[in-house]
């Protein structure tokens, strides 16, 4: 079991760096569109999610209803329910409900991805360590972006744009190389997400829904075609 806070902190460093540049953009965008820096920082602190915050910013700026806000967040962030379900199975039995209530706050795409990539189970102290620096990076980046009068040079932001995706690729490729079953699931997800991105009608589907549908279908097909017997899991 992984339950060392230092190991978590170390694994959180690259996530924190990636978050800083993304939330920097969020902070800049929010303040440029007329939001107070304090509010931008509060949104980042309480939500800790990129797509949901950018969408939420649009909802706020357009003056839409609270119901619309709730529905937008529900659709865009529903993927976290799948991730939490998967993460729940990854937790050691020592992770009690009060810890789960806290850890739930920090279950982002990247934190979920890194926790899932650990062999065996994970415990609460590892998770706390893993969550801490990304939260600081996310909130700090928002604050910096919000108050920065000078902008990061465009070429630096462009290069940093792929940082988080690079991490995802580093997580997916090695197991896909070793296990043909994972490879098949990856290719199904790849085909589906490309269809949703480029085909007419399908591309009307929002980004949040697209990820949920692709995940359900690809993982579902994988489970039916290649069920894993007890004890075979990494």
């Amino acid at each position: 079991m992984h339950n060392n806070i230092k190991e978590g902190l170390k694994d959180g460093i690259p996530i924190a760096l990636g978050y800083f540049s993304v939330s920097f953009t969020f902070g800049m965008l929010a303040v440029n569109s007329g939001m107070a820096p304090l509010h931008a920082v509060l949104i980042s602190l309480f939500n800790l999610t990129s797509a949901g915050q950018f969408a939420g910013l649009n909802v706020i700026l357009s003056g839409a209803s609270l119901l619309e806000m709730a529905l937008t967040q529900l659709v865009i962030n529903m993927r976290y329910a799948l991730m939490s379900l998967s993460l729940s199975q990854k937790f050691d039995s020592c992770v009690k409900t009060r810890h789960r209530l806290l850890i739930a706050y920090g279950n982002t795409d990247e934190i979920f991805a890194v926790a899932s990539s650990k062999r065996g189970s994970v415990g609460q102290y590892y998770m706390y360590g893993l969550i801490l620096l990304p939260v600081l990076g996310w909130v700090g980046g928002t604050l910096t972006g919000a108050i920065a009068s000078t902008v990061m040079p465009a070429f630096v932001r462009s290069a940093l744009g792929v940082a988080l995706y690079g991490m995802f690729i580093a997580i997916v490729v090695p197991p896909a190389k070793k296990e043909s079953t994972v490879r098949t699931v990856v290719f199904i997800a790849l085909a589906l997400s490309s269809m949703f991105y480029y085909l007419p009608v399908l591309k009307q589907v929002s980004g949040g829904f697209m990820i949920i549908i692709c995940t359900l279908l690809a993982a579902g097909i994988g489970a039916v075609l290649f069920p894993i017997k007890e004890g075979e899991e990494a």
Partner: protein
Amino acid sequence: MIYAYIFVMAGVTYLIRMLPLTLIQKKISNVYIRSFLYYVPYACLTAMTFPAILYATASPISAFAGLAAAIFFAMKEKSLVMVACFSCIGVFITERILELI
């Protein structure tokens, strides 16, 4: 009003993350559900990465270079940070070359 927006936003996002993590703590024994959950991270990360990565930089060409660099170094099983760095460097170099052409 801004605080009402922030409250609803944060509340919905937290509940989505919290409910499955607290309500479903028992180990699931059904082999299909277990397999499904085992494949979820790979399916989800893939769908989030591609083709979105192609539009994450100033040009799809530099983004493609970043993607290729990431896959190349991930195949060599470099660490997450290294793969992310090489991917950024790939984008950076490609954009400088594109400027020269």
